[in-house]
């Protein structure tokens, strides 16, 4: 689960990391008030940042500076309501604009190959790390945390020195260890600070040169969905503004569902087979409307819920059901399909393929109910594409 920058910053702050203050505003008026407070506290400018769970906010015009309360209100008014990668901005973060001396990059991620937590640091901050990795791979320093003990002091020191943090290396050590603690405390997959920055405090142009500090200017945290059950407090960070109603329905039904742009709805058991079914629809000349895994052992009620999810998308004009029974019983799915079809409001052609456990009974039920069936996966995909009028569009 992705969480907003402001929530990610709160998690870091709770681990004792240096994060400059901010406020979240939902209206231009609120943004103005927040800007007034920041300016009164000595800031020369404020930064206003769109709070959306997609990257590339800056490029899309979702991050702007303002030098007065009036300007802050106007800027916030423009950002609020704008669409960034199809997500409408409903809130902005307002903070004193930092007087940046130098930007760095620091993150903690789960390294699948090494099966450990991996820290990545770079003196090339403020740009996407993927770009740095391509352009100047030597500019990134890697350090694995100990699998039993977490990030040890000496590991954090090696990272800080390799990042060229200079006089700020001790702060770098503390922040690196804090990232790993944040990851462990909340079961995060990713904790990223970009930029981590040396900033001049006491306002720009104060020029005394003594007030430099290493701080986390941005924060990105992704949580492990498998661990949310044991962190009920993190559920509150799920952003209802950005969750599609069908996503919520799917989550509550225990169905893995991802909406795509095509016309052929897919209902499959198993994630790998669900992806394969999508791929074969595409290969047969159609476009899949969704990824949907009903999970193992699904019964009639889950099948009905899956059908509702698929039909909620008005673009769907054909449905492909592909079940390879193992734990899942084919006859249960067939009964669920028959029941779901009797209730559904929209008549959409459906192609059903059920093999594996109890497939004979499933075939008999489907035949009685006059369902279009298919033997092989390829045949099922071809039939679904033929049934979909929108395939050529």
């Amino acid at each position: 689960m992705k969480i907003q920058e402001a929530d990610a910053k709160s998690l870091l702050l709770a681990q004792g990391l240096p994060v400059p203050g901010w406020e979240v505003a939902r209206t231009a008026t609120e943004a103005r008030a927040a800007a007034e407070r920041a300016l009164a506290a000595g800031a020369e400018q404020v930064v206003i940042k769109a709070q959306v769970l997609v990257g590339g906010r800056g490029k899309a015009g979702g991050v702007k500076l303002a030098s007065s309360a009036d300007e802050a209100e106007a800027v916030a008014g423009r950002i609020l309501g704008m669409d960034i990668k199809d997500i409408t901005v409903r809130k902005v973060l307002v903070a004193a604009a930092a007087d940046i001396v130098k930007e760095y990059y620091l993150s903690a991620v789960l390294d699948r190959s090494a099966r450990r937590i991996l820290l990545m640091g770079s003196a090339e901050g403020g740009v996407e790390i993927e770009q740095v990795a391509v352009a100047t791979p030597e500019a990134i320093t890697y350090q694995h945390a100990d699998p039993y003990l977490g990030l040890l002091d000496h590991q954090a020191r090696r990272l800080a020195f390799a990042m060229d943090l200079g006089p700020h290396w001790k702060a770098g050590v503390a922040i690196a260890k804090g990232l790993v603690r944040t990851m462990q405390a909340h079961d995060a997959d990713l904790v990223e600070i970009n930029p981590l920055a040396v900033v001049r405090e006491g306002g720009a142009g104060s020029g005394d040169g003594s007030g430099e500090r290493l701080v986390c200017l941005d924060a990105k945290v992704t949580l492990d969905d498998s661990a949310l059950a044991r962190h009920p407090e993190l559920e509150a960070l799920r952003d209802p503004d950005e969750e599609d109603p069908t996503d919520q329905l799917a989550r509550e039904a225990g169905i893995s569902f991802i909406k795509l742009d095509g016309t052929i709805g897919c209902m499959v058991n198993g994630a790998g087979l669900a992806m394969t079914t999508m791929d074969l629809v595409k290969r047969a000349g159609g476009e899949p409307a969704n990824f949907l895994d009903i999970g193992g052992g699904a019964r009639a009620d889950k099948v009905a819920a899956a059908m509702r999810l698929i039909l909620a998308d008005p673009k769907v004009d054909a449905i492909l059901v592909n079940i390879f029974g193992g734990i899942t019983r084919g006859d249960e799915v067939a009964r669920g399909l028959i029941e779901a079809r009797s209730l559904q409001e929209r008549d959409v052609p459906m192609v059903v393929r059920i093999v594996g456990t109890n497939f004979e009974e499933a075939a008999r039920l489907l035949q009685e109910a006059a369902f279009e069936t298919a033997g092989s996966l390829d045949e099922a995909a071809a039939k679904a594409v033929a049934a979909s009028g929108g395939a050529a569009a």
Partner: protein
Amino acid sequence: MSILVGRHTRLVVQGITGREGGFHAAAMLEYGTLVVAGVTPGKGGQTALDGRVPVFDSVHRAVAETGADTSCIFVPAAGAPDAVMEAVDAGIRTIFCITEGIPALDMVPVVQAIRDAGARLIGPNCPGATSPGQAKVGIIPGSVHREGRVGVVSRSGTLTYEAVQAMTDAGIGQSTCVGIGGDPIIGTTFSDILALFAEDAETDALVLIGEIGGDAEEQAAGWAAEHLADIPKVAFIAGRTAPEGKRMGHAGAIISGASGTAQSKVDALEAAGFRVAGSPTELPTLLRDAGYAG
């Protein structure tokens, strides 16, 4: 010989009195697997599967009484990491963890402990392994298999059944089919399994079934290019149409930026001499094209 499981396997099922554990333990027994013990804390002294399998309070007890050497875990996610640690502590050296939904960070120290002990963990979130005609450990339906000489390794569950069924229907049998699991942190990788198949005198060809996310397929391709140049190899990769940044059901199936794409895996596998199928149903034909005559 087959790999990981066989006639010699003496299996303990952790969580045998649960719904899933009981159902699949019965199917394993029916397939011919030597299910010698079950473990459910607090139910020691009872029996499971109509009196055919004794239940113990601990894996230690089960090992001492029955000589179990392999474990299959159906314990719910909250207790599964501990179940793995219990098995390795009791001296079990081949551990299958079927459990889905274990928080990834929980597995980091567990996987290290398994390595330190010189044991092998397959999974978590895996369907297990079957050596057709000998034994099956896990949840792969026994009906999809046929005895033979092709080794199959996959990250998926039902997709594996699909691929194996297609092989069986075409008359191509399997030496062992292994599902390594769809989680980000797993105990045994594609490369580990390929290394076992490379040493197996009864495996003459390989089928690798991968999916988007991570770079385990690319690593396996590299390993195969070096060590398995002369053996027929085919592959299938799921998720060519998967969008970037979305978890496709499996916790590990996610494309992050440019990494973990199906194309990257297909390219790496083809460069390593694998023939890559566009559909699981093409795997048998591609095996024949690659020179497999079994």
